[in-house]
Every structure is written in structure tokens, then in C-alpha cells.
């Protein structure tokens, strides 16, 4: 900054160039290839600040995650998590998780609920999205509007209704468990929200495709199954993924609705490891969280390629 008061204003790079010839040469030889305008000094400062903020943010997110991973493997942790302890690699928290808690049952419950929710959602959204996009029927506009408005009411507001619904349903079908009620709640919400998304996506697929299929001999069901569904696959995959992950993340509904720890989902089950001093084991909680994250991450990574390539190949125009 001591150069700035000798009249001639120099950019940061020029000043750097004076001090370090190597820096200068490299800059002169390099062609400026970016399509954007070169940054002004102000722009550079702004960019620096933006980077700083982002890095800080990343640290705020990553540091607890890092602590979680470390504690999960730290044999010197017990009961309550204590920071800056010494580290000794051990799997004892995982052992505790599998042997002393109902972790495996929770995994099973969660998978059952997640998969059912995803399948149910996909099935119904397929019908509703396709129908809303392709058919004109009475009440089409108003029912779409209604769906949109219902979205604004939080699911939890319906909790008493859910209890009543469950008792009515289970008196008719004795096998109707609380978990199934949960599946209905999750997929109900997902169907409403995703109908919109899928309708929008199918709207962007030319109806001439439907016509061509009709002439080629497809029934309405076949048009959806053989033509529209494959074309809309990326969207369907995203919808499926979202509704699959939902039950992993939600803790409130299972906590309220499910009664015995044996029927808990992962989120609700793991919570018992940190909120009750009798069962308190924070490192095991960390270990459980870690294990839960792995399949979801893997799922995302493995589907990522398809999601992206599918989105860009959605339609063919002349």
C-alpha cells in the first residue's frame, strides 16, 4: 500500500510484477482467455472477500463433521464427547452400536420406510404428473392450485389427524402399523410436491412424441411406460432419491408417531443415544451417523453421472 500515494495508480499485479520479475514475465506471456472482462481492483478485493467467507463457511460445516469422524474412531472417547482428547484408533464404538443398541433394527426400519416411500411416490407421481401434463379434465387447474396451497401447511400440523387416521385404519386392517402410517405421510407429502415438478418436466416433452407412439401402436399406458418414462427418467430418479432420503433425515415424525424403540427409524433411534443419560453414548451416535451417511453418499455418486447426462439429453429437436 506504500506505493499508492506517488500519483501513478498501479494495479496489484503490476506492483507484484515490480517486486518479483518472475511473476511479471509469466503474466505477460499468458494470453487472457476468459470470456469475462478482466477484474478491476475492486472486483479482486470483492472476490477475495467472497472466497474468505466461503472458506469460513466450509470450515464451519466441515469441522464438526471432522470431529464426528474422529470421535467415532477414537477409542479414548467414552460417554460424553470431549474435544482435544488424545486419539487412539478403535472400532469399539461401532461394536457398541451393533451389540448394545438396536442399530440393525433401525437400519431395517429405515430402509423399509424409505424404499416403500420412494416406490409409492414414484408410482403415484408417475400417474399424476403424466395426467396433469397430458389430459384436460374438469377441475384440473383448481386441483393443481389446491395441491400447491396444501404444501404451505407444515406436515406436523396434521399430527392429531394422523393419530386418528391411524386408529381408524388399523381397526379396519389390523396389520396397519405405525410405520405404514409414516410411509403414507411421507409419500403423501412427496406426491403432492413432486406432481408439480414432474408435470413441468413432462410438459417440456413434445406431444408429437405421444402422437408418434400412438400411431406406432401404443396404448396410453404404453406411451407412458415406453416413451415418456424413459425420457423423464432423470427427473424420476431425482424424485425417487429425494423421497428415499427423506425418512433418513426426518426425526420428528417417527419420534412422535412410533412408540417402541424397536420400531424407530435411524434418526429417531440414534437420538436416544444423545438425549437420555441412561443410554448416553455420544461417540456411538457419531459412529451411527457416519454409517448412515455412507450409503446415501454412495447412492448419489453412483447415480450422478446418469442424472447429469440424462438432463442434457432430454429431448431431440431438429
Amino acid at each position, binding site marked *: 500500500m506504500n506505493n499508492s500515494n506517488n500519483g501513478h495508480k498501479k494495479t496489484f499485479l503490476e506492483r507484484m510484477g515490480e517486486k518479483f520479475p518472475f511473476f511479471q514475465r509469466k503474466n505477460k506471456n499468458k494470453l487472457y482467455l476468459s470470456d469475462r472482462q478482466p477484474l478491476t481492483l475492486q472486483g479482486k478485493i470483492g472476490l477475495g472477500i467472497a472466497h474468505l467467507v466461503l472458506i469460513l463457511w466450509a470450515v464451519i460445516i466441515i469441522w464438526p463433521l471432522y470431529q464426528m469422524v474422529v470421535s467415532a474412531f477414537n477409542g479414548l472417547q467414552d460417554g460424553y464427547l470431549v474435544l482435544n482428547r488424545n486419539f487412539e484408533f478403535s472400532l469399539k464404538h461401532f461394536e457398541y452400536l451393533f451389540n448394545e443398541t438396536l442399530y440393525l433394527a433401525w437400519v431395517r426400519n429405515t430402509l423399509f420406510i424409505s424404499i416403500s416411500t420412494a416406490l409409492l411416490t414414484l408410482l403415484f407421481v408417475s400417474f399424476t404428473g403424466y395426467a396433469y401434463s397430458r389430459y384436460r379434465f374438469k377441475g384440473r387447474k383448481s386441483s393443481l392450485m389446491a395441491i400447491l396451497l396444501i404444501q404451505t401447511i407444515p406436515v406436523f400440523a396434521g399430527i392429531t389427524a394422523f393419530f386418528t387416521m391411524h386408529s381408524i385404519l388399523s381397526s379396519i386392517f389390523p396389520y396397519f402399523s405405525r410405520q405404514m402410517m409414516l410411509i403414507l405421510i411421507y409419500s403423501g407429502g412427496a406426491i403432492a410436491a413432486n406432481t408439480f415438478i414432474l408435470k413441468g418436466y413432462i410438459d417440456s416433452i413434445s406431444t408429437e412424441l405421444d402422437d*408418434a*407412439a400412438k400411431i406406432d401402436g*401404443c396404448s396410453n399406458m404404453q406411451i407412458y411406460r415406453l416413451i415418456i418414462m424413459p425420457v423423464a427418467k432423470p427427473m424420476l430418479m431425482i424424485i425417487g432419491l429425494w423421497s428415499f432420503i427423506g425418512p433418513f433425515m426426518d426425526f420428528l415424525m417417527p419420534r412422535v408417531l412410533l412408540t417402541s424403540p424397536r420400531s424407530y427409524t435411524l434418526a429417531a433411534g440414534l437420538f436416544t443415544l444423545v438425549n437420555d443419560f441412561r443410554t448416553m453414548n455420544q461417540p456411538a451416535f457419531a459412529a451411527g451417523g457416519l454409517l448412515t451417511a455412507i450409503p446415501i453418499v454412495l447412492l448419489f455418486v453412483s447415480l450422478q453421472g446418469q442424472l447429469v447426462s440424462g438432463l442434457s*439429453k432430454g429431448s431431440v429437436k431438429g
Partner: protein
Amino acid sequence: MKVVLKNIGKKYEGREEFTLKNINLEIEEQEFCVILGPSGCGKTTMLRMIAGLNSITEGDLLFNDKRMNKVAPKDRDIAMVFQSYALYPHMTVYENMAFSLTMRKERKSLIDERVQEAAKVLQMEENLYVKPSDISGGQRQRVALGRAMVRNPKVFLMDEPLSNLDAKLREHMRVELIRLHKQLGTTTIYVTHDQTEAMTMASKIVLMDDGIIQQVGKPDDLYMRPKNLFVAAFIGSPSMNIIKGKIEQGRFISDNRLMMITPTKTHKEGLEAFEGKSVSAGIRPERFESGGEYGDTFNVNVDVVEMLGKEKILYGKLDDGKELIISTPGHYKYQGGERYAFGYDLEAIHYFDQETGERIN
């Protein structure tokens, strides 16, 4: 197969007016019929009704004397080529072409045979196993044709299939389509709003406007003997000069009294009934006679001369500002900003009743 439309009308749900009304049309076996008309006149609607994609509000659709109004599209033995080609993006070119046969559960060997045959005719053998997104527009067009061909349909329906191609390729595909039609001999109904396509390809043109058929005939008929003012103005490029005037003592006098035409003997007979009435005279740009000296002549101030090589197009004005377009052979000497005299080829003048727009002579 012979396609007959008897008194067909179409009214869309939620519309006040009929989109199509009183359509009577016969399309003979092996004909290449082009439906021509300005945008929004109902061409696509008509084609989709023949395909069975739109319902028919009134009238009868007959294929070889069999009523088809209620038959499902897949059972009509037709194939359609769409404007956007409507190729299935998730299938390869081969699967696209084979799809209709697969749906009919044909034998694999037969399907393969047909697809290979179509690919050969269309010169698409090398691209059979790529997705439609990886080939060019002209090739997609050919896949769309191939998909229609493998079904061996009785009628080809095409809705502006060339409108997405660039000018050069369009010209090329035009020739290929005609060649293909000669080779297969399938009855073809082709929709377009491009009159060059219609004039060059059709064995029969159906010119429509406003949901009504204006004229049906060979390209020659429509050009030489337009039935009404709409046809006269629509067909031909540059378009016909239409001059408003009156018949006075057996002669046509334009409203601005700058053009006078003595009809030929044959024309005179028809015009007798219009003595004193308003009549429009139509003259194609190429039917003026350069350097008119004898008979009826008129003077025109030429503003712009377009040199196209084999012909020159002169854009001029009469003294009162009425615009005229005149086409002359390219080697004639004309310059913008000059005044020239022209005569008429009297045989080639079309007279129309101004009240009804119908042709008189």
C-alpha cells in the same frame, strides 16, 4: 389406397367457430397430394384427423370406401412424419425404426430385414446404432422417414417435414422425397405452407384458407387458372399483380385510369355480364411485354431492379403510386429511376369479380 373426405368439419372443444368446414376431397391411389395454405388455416388439423389423432366432428373419412372415423390411429395403416420428427430420444436409430413393428410383435428377422432395407434406401446404414441426438438434422429427417417406411403403410402423412432444415438441404430432401415416392408408390398427403415445395412436389395441390378449400388441382391449374383472388395472390413468387378497375364498353379500365386492357375475344364473352361493374385484373409479373409500343400500354417508374441472373425483377410504381412488380429476362437492360413503357400478354390476364373474388374468364 384412396382417401376420401366427405363434408368433413372440425370444431375444437372450447372454440366458437368451426376450424374446418365442408371439406370435400378425393385423393387417388399413389397420388402425392400437397395441402397448402397460410399459417393457421387448419392444415395440421386436417392431417391429424386423417391420422386419427384428432376426432372428426362431422362428415365421413373413407379409406377405399371404408369409413374410418372411429378407427384407432394404429389400425388405419398410415404412417406420419412430424414437423419436429418426434424421434424417441432414448432409443437408437435402429430401435426408432423398429419400434412400430416391435409393438406389433413381428418376428425379429422380419423387423431386421425391413429396417436394413429402409436404411439402405435412405443411406443411413452407418448410423443405425447411434442415438438421434448424435446425428444431424437431415439425418434425423431421414430416420423419421425410415420409421414411417418400415411399416409399409398404405398412406404417408407428412406435416411440414422439411421446415426445420436449411435451404440447401431442403432442396435436396425435396428431390429425395419425390424419388422415394416414385419408388414406393405410396399415397402421400403432405402439408406445407411453402408454395415452392407444393409446386415442385405435388401431383395435386389442395390450397386452403380459413378452414375452407379454395382450389384443388395440378400445380399448373393453380398457377394458370386460379379460381379466385386468394389463389391468384397466394400462388406464384413474386406474386401476381392485382389491379382494381371497372369494365367500360367492353374494356377493362383501372380505377386510376392509368391502365386500360382490351380483352381477347374469348375473355370478352365472360366479361359481358360485368359491364359497368367492379372487376380486378390479375397479371403475373412475367406476362408483361417489354417495350410495349402497340396496343394497350402503360408507363411505369422503376424504383429498384433486382438482378437474379436469368431474370430481372423490376419494382415500380404507376404515376399515382400503385405498385407493380414486373419480371423480365435477365439480359434486358433496365435501370432503377427510369420510366419505361410495357404492354400486356392479353391471353394471360385473369379477371376476377371483385364482389365474390371468383374468376370470370
